[in-house]
């Protein structure tokens, strides 16, 4: 009688044969059941997928509304719109990976001179932008500088997260300080406010927003500039820059709160809301949080635009633009979507959802109803309409080199090195000149 069981021996050959057969069967089961044919054309010939990469705004309502607007447009046009929001500081890495791989989001939101960096990777949108400019009464010069690269519009001007100085009216009054009209008055105000116990707070570390938007206009206002009009000749070594650096050291020593060398974009928000400082340059987010959570603080807060320097009044606004990636398979749909959200019916509602946190780049929106909601937010519009906004690389164009200088914090560190006493002012300028020569000198 045979044993009820039998020892099973599988040879390697049998094992491999079986495994190969299994893999083959699996592959066969995963294969399309019908022969691949041409895809069914979408309704009206439109593509079916659009991936939009945007930053996470500090005003959540704005993100929510734009998402809804895009998805509603998608439903009407048979386009599946996927909107992804990420931290603004993380957009560079995502965009770089997408450009290198030639795959990823179809539409990307970025800021400042990025259309210059990615000129070859962005679609020409000149026709659409020119039509928008015509319809919406023109666009501000800084947006034209950023988005029109070598005569071709590579991105749609989208919005400003404009910045002004928020200040405590009660502290200013008690310290005997008036709203400064010039940077010298600003320095004097800082001395009094610091003596009063509520200094000025201004970031001087490595962060994408606050440090550059304060220190570039500071340089320009005292007459300093990184390059000449040709956008190539380094011009940082000048008496004007020396004055700017010396004045920065004076402000740092006598008017700023301790620790600003380590501040990032959120540090001044926290310090102001905790009533540690009396004034700082920021977007409207501090005021909005105060209105929502600390109404008494909002009551004693107001805003003023950039003071004037010996060379004029300058500001550096955070300019958001929207570009379409050249690798996108849905370029026409992407153009249609962006044009749609920039139309007054959508864009005005979006501006109002932000209550003044964002400002329109087209002059049509200068009188948007949002500016009638609260007189304290008007400076956020005025700092745009007064035409003071410039860009890294000014008076030259905001080239890829200028954006490299900005993203490597050369101008911010020029002041940081002097304020921290790592270098004397002249040495700091020499250091910055060396860095600028390296960047502008490279082919």
């Amino acid at each position, binding site marked *: 009688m045979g044993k009820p069981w039998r020892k099973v021996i599988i*040879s*390697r*050959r049998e094992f*491999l*044969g079986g495994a190969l057969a299994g893999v083959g069967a699996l592959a066969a089961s995963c294969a399309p059941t019908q022969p691949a044919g041409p895809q069914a054309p979408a309704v009206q010939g439109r593509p079916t997928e659009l991936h939009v990469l945007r930053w996470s705004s500090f005003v959540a309502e704005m993100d929510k509304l734009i998402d809804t607007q895009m998805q509603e447009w998608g439903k009407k046009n048979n386009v599946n719109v996927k909107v992804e929001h990420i931290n603004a500081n993380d957009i*560079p*890495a995502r*965009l*770089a990976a997408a*450009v*290198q791989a030639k795959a990823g989001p179809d539409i990307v939101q970025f800021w400042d001179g990025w259309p210059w*960096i*990615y000129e*070859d*990777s962005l679609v020409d949108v000149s026709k659409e932008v020119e039509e928008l400019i015509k319809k919406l009464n023109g666009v501000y010069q800084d947006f034209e500088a950023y988005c029109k690269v070598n005569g071709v519009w590579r991105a749609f001007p989208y919005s400003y997260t404009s910045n002004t100085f928020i200040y405590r009216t009660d502290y200013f009054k008690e310290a005997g300080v008036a709203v400064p009209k010039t940077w010298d008055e600003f320095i004097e105000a800082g001395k009094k406010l610091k003596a009063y116990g509520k200094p000025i707070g201004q970031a*001087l*570390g*490595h*962060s994408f927003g606050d440090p550059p938007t304060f220190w570039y206009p500071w340089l320009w206002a005292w007459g300093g500039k990184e390059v000449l009009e040709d956008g190539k000749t380094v011009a940082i070594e000048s008496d004007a820059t020396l004055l700017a650096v010396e004045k920065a050291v004076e402000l740092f020593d006598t008017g700023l*709160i*301790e*620790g*600003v*060398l*380590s*501040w*990032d974009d959120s*540090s001044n928000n*926290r*310090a102001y809301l*905790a009533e*540690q400082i009396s004034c700082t340059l920021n977007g409207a987010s501090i005021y909005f949080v105060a209105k929502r959570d600390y109404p008494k603080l909002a009551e004693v807060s107001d805003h003023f635009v950039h003071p004037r320097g010996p060379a004029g009044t300058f500001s550096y606004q955070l300019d958001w633009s929207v570009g379409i990636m050249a690798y996108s398979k849905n370029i026409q749909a992407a153009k249609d979507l962006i044009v749609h959200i920039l139309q007054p019916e959508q864009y005005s509602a979006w501006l109002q959802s932000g209550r003044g946190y964002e400002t329109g780049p087209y002059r049509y929106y200068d009188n948007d109803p949002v500016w009638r909601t609260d007189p304290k937010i008007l400076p956020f519009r005025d700092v745009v309409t007064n035409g003071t906004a410039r860009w890294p690389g000014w008076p030259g164009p905001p080239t*890829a080199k200028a*954006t*490299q200088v900005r*993203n*490597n*914090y050369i101008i911010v*560190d020029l002041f*940081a*090195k002097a304020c*921290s006493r*790592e270098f004397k002012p002249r040495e700091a300028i020499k*250091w910055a000149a*060396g*860095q600028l020569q*390296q960047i502008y000198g*490279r*082919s």
Partner: protein
Amino acid sequence: MAKKGVLAETSAVAVPKRLPRTFSPGIILEREQVLGYLLMLPALALLTVFVLYPFLYGIWLALTDSRIGIPGQFVGLRNFLDLTQDSIFQQTFRNTFLYTGVTTVFKLIFGLAIAALLNNKFPLKRFVRAAVLLPWIVPTVLSALAWLWMFDSTFSVVNWVLARFGIKGPVWLGNNPWPMISLMVVNIWRGTPFYAISFLAGMQTINQELYEAAAIDGASRWQMFRHITLPLLKPVITIVLLLSVILTFSDFQLIYVLTRGGPANSTHLFATLAYQVGLPSGEIGRGAAISLFIFPALCITVFLTLWYMRRQELD
């Protein structure tokens, strides 16, 4: 006859015939040499795609003036030569060696001390051993954010505590040399558990009879540690040091969260500078060159460590 015939038949069968050589895949797979290489193929393919290709591509990029989205021209060693003249890179170079050297020494000392303590019997021993690992287990970004708050120039809990004792704390992430010191503290805090647990595992493999014999001979605890524990722990120490140096050299997360290389580049390491130059600034060729500077330094470290290990084994 019949027998003879059978024998003749049998002997005819027994004579080995030369079979025709076949090349069926099944038979080839039965051969060790072929099958061995075949089984290695998936791992080799993975390594090629995810390690070798990026590495070679990184070398190629470093030899070009590529920008993101724009294939560059071959420029030879120009990126490397330019970097040696760049004061930010020079500072980064010094920072990286200082950061790795100082933190490694402290992690080694603290790791040994904690392991020696944990190797004793005490109440809640297992719980404490698990708890010691926490800083190493918590995702670095999360713990770095917690440290960011603790080092905040306005709301630092550390300075708040110091103020209770009448001491004015420094601006941890602001005024030199404190930013680098702060980063080192966090790195040591995070890395020490890895050392401690590895050393503890090594200590537990040491034969207890050695300690008993030493005790009979009147050896003190320090002598036992010096002459028994340390020599027998050397292979583990070497491996831990090797891994730790590699990881610390290429540290990114801590610096990115706490300082982003600031203030004024005083805390940049190779990885953070490579990121800043390669991605936000778009100079991917130059960024690749910066990151490749890690490679020879690590090669020397690995070589020295392995050479030392081999010498120990021979001894």
